[in-house]
């Protein structure tokens, strides 16, 4: 950053900044809801219970159900898709009965896990019995299906063009999709307009922090001001004193 440039910037000192911050009223209830949203979506049941008791913020879902949802997510993340499917069906059979795309992704994941474990014979049978017929009933899944079944062709899948399917990120993706579907089936009505349901698959907090970082970057071009450099401490760092 050149000197001449920085001279053109407005300088906002610590006191002025604090005053301006005070002008912005953020309701405490809203802050609490963001925190609760994070705890619930990420599955911190015990923390959510304590927070509910202490802050009086409604969790928005039945906390008992969170345990189920978290267990199911963990099952997919650890590669036990069959277990996850059984648990979802116990929770609410309508989810997989209705959401064919989601169900397909779970079966796809199951095939991937069989291949990962080197159970090629089982994988082949599974593909023939459960995956192949889906293409006929759901033409929209056909392309993805072909790609998945092609996994069986490669000797070393990890160095094939389909390596991405074998990646842990694929497990995460499947787990998130299932998590979102369960949340949607349980979620509570939102009083806020335009918000689809009380809970999304992702907590709102990380996004708010991203917004904060983005806003600071935008502001850096126009002014110097007390910045938050460390998101964990949220400490305001005073700008260096002006040259003149």
């Amino acid at each position, binding site marked *: 950053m050149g000197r001449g440039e920085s001279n053109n910037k407005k300088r906002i000192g610590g006191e002025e900044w604090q005053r301006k911050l005070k002008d912005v009223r953020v309701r405490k209830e809203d802050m609490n809801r963001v925190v609760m949203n994070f705890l619930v979506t990420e599955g911190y049941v015990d923390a959510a219970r304590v927070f509910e008791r202490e802050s009086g913020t*409604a969790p*928005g879902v*039945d906390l008992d*159900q969170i345990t189920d949802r978290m267990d199911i997510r963990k099952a997919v993340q650890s590669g036990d898709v069959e277990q996850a*499917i*059984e648990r979802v*069906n116990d929770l*609410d*059979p*309508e989810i*997989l*009965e*209705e*959401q*064919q795309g989601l*169900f397909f992704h779970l079966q796809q994941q199951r095939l991937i896990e069989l291949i990962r474990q080197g159970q090629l014979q089982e994988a082949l*049978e599974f593909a023939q*019995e*459960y995956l192949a*017929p889906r293409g006929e*009933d759901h033409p929209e899944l056909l392309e993805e299906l072909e790609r998945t079944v092609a996994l069986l062709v490669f000797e070393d899948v990890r160095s094939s063009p389909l390596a991405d399917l074998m990646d842990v990120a694929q497990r995460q993706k499947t787990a998130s999709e299932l998590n979102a579907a369960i949340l949607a*089936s*349980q*979620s*509570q*009505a*939102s*009083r*806020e*307009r335009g*918000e*689809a*349901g*009380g809970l999304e698959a992702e907590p709102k907090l990380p996004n708010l922090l991203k917004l904060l970082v983005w806003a600071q970057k935008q502001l850096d071009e126009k002014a110097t001001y007390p910045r938050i450099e460390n998101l964990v401490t949220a400490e305001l760092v005073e700008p260096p004193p002006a040259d003149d």
Partner: protein
Amino acid sequence: MAAVRRQQLVEGLHSSDSATRLQSLRGIKNCVIGNKRQKLQYIQLGAVQLVVGVLASPAADAAQLVQAAAALGSFAANDEGLQVVLQHGGIPHLLRVLQNSEDSKVVEAAARALKAVCRSPAAPTCEILTASGVLLRLVSLLDSSTSNVADCAAAVLACYCQGPEEQGAVAAAGAVAPLVALLSSPQRAKQEAALEALAALSRGNADTSAAMLQDGSVVSSLLRAIKQGGTPHTRFVAAVCLANLSRNLPVWHTEHSQQDLQQAVLPVLVRLLGEAELAEDVPGALCQLVEHSVELQQAAADADAIVKLAAILREPPRPARLVEGALRCLATLCANREEHRRQLVDAKVLPQVAAALSDTRPSTRAAACMCMRSLSRSTKLLRGHLGDVEVAAPLLALAADPDAEVALQAVGTLANMAVDFSAVKEQLLAHDGVARFAALADSMQPQLRLHGVWGLSSVAYMATPEVKQSIAQQLPWSSVVVLLEDPEPEVREKAMLLLRNMLYNAEHNIQAVLNWSCNTLLEAVRDVLERSRGQAGLKQHAMYVVVNMASSTAAHKAAVMQSGWPALLVEQLSDGDERVREAAVWAIINLTWSRDGDAEETAARVQQLRLLGVEEQLKRLEHDECVSVKERATTALEQLRAVAAADDEMEAV
């Protein structure tokens, strides 16, 4: 391998060991959920019957009942499966479990399974739920706090509300209060299920609507839901529900007026039209809301509904039902107001509406046709834009549609488009429109006949001799005679209008019509006139046939004088309708007017008319309440006296 496992699971259902049975039930359930092929495979192995057996068994424990009910629900979620479930009498057992069990998990599973059954369009829902006590049980479950039991019960009740009888039964079972209470549930799924049920319950039913309105909070709950509903779907269902109630407000409900409620619903529906993920028939609901109210139509147009509906037509892949709804709604909004038609044309969707006339779905074709009919009422559009799109050929095809309603809309539109100044008239003639109208004029269906003759009469107006000739060729005189005697007064009137337009304005036209009728025209028209008391429109057209002939050559005038018409004309001078009186005076003026040196014949005609007392009648008309009758009567009298005076002079000489 898989086949072996299936076999094992099914055999497991026979096992005497209850743990094995439970495991098998659970295994089968997990195989069939979401999987059509697996369902069919297990059906073939006879699994459904065995699962029903578990539900029916008094020995089955709660865990088994839960798995059996879930498996049954999954089988019933597809049509083949449902049929097998019905065949093996699975439903009565499911209902018994639902009604008798006190285990919340069992009740949950049974309610979910029943919802799966009733959601199938193939399910005999009404028959199933009419079983004794079922409705009461479902209503009692609306209070349940177990997971989604209340939503399932509400969903089942919604499926049941298919007609007034079922709606009445649901209300009588006490469903209204708990459903309204569910509207304030913090859980979105419960709110939505309750809204769906209330919408189904109030659909076209004044009694159940009144029952709902007994609950003071229902309207405010719905007003909140149309604004703050979490999803577009929620807002839509709430809007439909509120619209239902607004149509059947009981007199004692003074808190909200029909207008207030409908004005509240309208902007919500219009806004929903613009939702990207629009899945419901919002256009259809909007159409229903505004169809009987010009103010609401105006309000909808002011809120940009026409532009949004046009966008639905313009941006392809939309579900067919939506396109149909949009066309219907546009038809309603454009039925009366020229500025609305203008908006539709400005939105550049005329080609899409025209293309929809040839859609593969009959109901979409019908909707497009209604829309075209609304547009064809605009003389401006007829003169201009409608001529730019291909409409005559598809409309003519629709005129032969097996659906009488569609055919009628098409023919009505065509008749509008046949008028003289229409830019579509050329297209119509090029596609054998005359022959098609003539064929329709022969139809057994009175409305089709009417529009066929109407179309022909429009085509004939100011037409070239060639077009008139083709009309005479396509419609034999014998058919004209039949049409003039049609049982429907409107058909008779349009047939007479056709004759009037056919001989309008030129001697050669008159001669052509005389030839067409083998010189029986005057007799035929006279017979009709004598039989048509009180039909002023028809009489007027008939009179102008004679007025036209009386303005023609001496020979044509002579034909009028020799046909029994003079006495009839004098009689019409005292008709109750001023248009008929005026036409009669015109005929007298024409008959007493001398041209081409026919003074002698004119004198003879005047003489004949005077003997019939025409002077006294005309003198009376000089005091007529209608100004133009009065003025014409004076003219006629002057002309009559001039001829008589000239005649007297001649005699004196």
